[in-house]
């Protein structure tokens, strides 16, 4: 089917709209001038300035720590929750449980942040890295559980039953049969939780204390005063990391796809 001019125009304009702002940001991160909107010459000095700014490096380190811990914890809890919802028999409070899985997905961040802060103050927990990890784990486990449940729903349950019939304990059946099958969903759940945590400004602002500043909090307070060349450089680095990650992930999944196709042909 050939595309009409109308369709070609809407695709071109649409993707220009999606990508131009970021491309401009990347280009102007190499601008020499401190006045961000006036191009004076090519320079990488803002990258140097950024990398020698200890406050940014500290914030990046805190953000990374929070993201690794919270996404790992969220993946474990979210997978358990998905398993309980999809495979678990009826248990008391099941409706409440599935409600609590879906509600955080639509809850405005300001409310999630506010409520967790009031809880932490109520129980007298010192706010810092730990409280952000707890907060991030809570909302991202719900995303993980949605991703993993959709995989659990779609795969053939008789495989698990066969393992059980052949003498596996339920735990072995989960470990040897279910887990390898849902592994791709678990990995994408982890990645989703990781990016959500890296990205979060609002919930982290509510639940952190003076001891821990994350990168989004740092960026937000810098950006509130206007556009700054260091933030442009930082944004470019973050965009580069994401683009690289997505390209690598799509290459891997393409290779797996090709291998599966060939494997399938071999068997038939």
């Amino acid at each position, binding site marked *: 089917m050939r595309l009409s001019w109308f369709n070609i125009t809407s695709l071109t304009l649409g993707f220009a709209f999606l990508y131009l702002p970021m491309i*401009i940001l990347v280009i102007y991160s190499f601008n020499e001038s401190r006045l*961000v909107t006036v191009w004076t010459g090519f320079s990488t000095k803002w990258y140097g300035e950024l990398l020698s700014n200890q406050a940014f490096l500290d914030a990046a380190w805190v953000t990374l720590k929070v993201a690794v811990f919270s996404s790992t914890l969220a993946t474990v809890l979210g997978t358990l929750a998905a398993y309980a919802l999809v495979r678990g028999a009826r248990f008391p409070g099941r409706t409440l449980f599935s409600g609590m*899985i879906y509600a955080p997905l639509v809850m405005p961040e300001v409310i999630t942040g506010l409520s967790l802060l009031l809880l932490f103050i109520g129980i007298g927990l010192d706010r810092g890295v730990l409280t952000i990890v707890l907060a991030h784990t*809570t909302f991202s486990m719900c995303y993980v559980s949605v991703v993993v449940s959709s995989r659990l729903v779609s795969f053939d349950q008789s495989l698990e039953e066969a393992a059980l019939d052949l003498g596996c304990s339920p735990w072995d059946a989960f470990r040897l049969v279910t887990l390898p099958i849902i592994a791709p969903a678990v990995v994408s759940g982890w990645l989703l939780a990781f990016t959500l945590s890296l*990205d979060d400004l609002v919930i982290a602002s509510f639940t952190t204390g003076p001891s821990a500043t994350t990168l989004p909090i740092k960026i937000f307070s810098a950006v509130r005063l206007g556009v700054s060349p260091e933030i442009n450089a930082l944004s470019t680095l973050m965009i580069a990391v*994401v*683009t690289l990650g997505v390209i690598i992930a799509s290459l891997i999944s393409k290779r797996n796809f090709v291998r599966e196709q060939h494997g399938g042909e071999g068997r038939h």
Partner: protein
Amino acid sequence: MRRVLIIIVPYLWLLALFLIPFAIVLKISLSDVAMARPPYLPQFSWEDGLGAFLSQLDFENFTFLTTDDLYWKAYLSSLQIAATSTLLTLLVGYPIAYAMARAPDEWRATLMMLVILPFWTSFLIRVYSWMGILSQEGYLNQLLLGLGVISEPLIILNTKVAVYIGIVYTYIPFMILPIYAALHRLDSSLIEAAEDLGCSRAKAFWLVTVPLSRNGIIAGCFLVFIPTLGEFVIPSLLGGSGTLMIGKVLWEEFFNNRGWPIASAVAVVLVLILIIPIVLFQQNQQKQNEAQS
């Protein structure tokens, strides 16, 4: 035993870190302003029995929300901004989704990736990227002045227009994907049939394509409308002090005025407002699932 553990661990986690915190918000919203002032002391006691508990409840904060017109104006303005930008996102997103559905098969995976890719990049950075474009000496004004289209710089940043642009930009994948999914399933012979039977192209579009992609449109609209209603980052970076949105009001009430009971009451009312579109969205999804199976 393990079976029980699988259920109980995430269950208790969500009870402790989702349900109980929300119950605390509800409690504080009903407590006295002075009592809940930080350092905050717990509010109600059950010891004196139910009667005493009920008499402690205080709807003062909610009546305060109705008397100070900042709050209801902020709710109305959030609803209006969310509705307008949902409509704009639909107008921008539909042609893209339509063209994607019509594109050759071998392009589809790439086009999908191009729509999803911005979603993985930081939300904050995507909003920030518009600050340099829309400011008074920004790239857009430079371009338009250079081309001689305008003689004086346009003021876009710190207005509602900038907020609309920011919302359309960041939420458009949520609109494109469900509409694309609906259009992708659409049998193109139906459109050919309409055209054979004498419909003009435009008429066939309105009478066949749009109604058949209705579920995708509805899903996309809710996916944009629901999160924008409580949005904080976009109005505070692009909207300036003149743009009123309830997420921003709640934030400022809490961090600047330290008005915890009022902030909690604002949150409770926002949740009550959100329940309506969420229930409608759920019903739409259920209908769609039934239609497919």
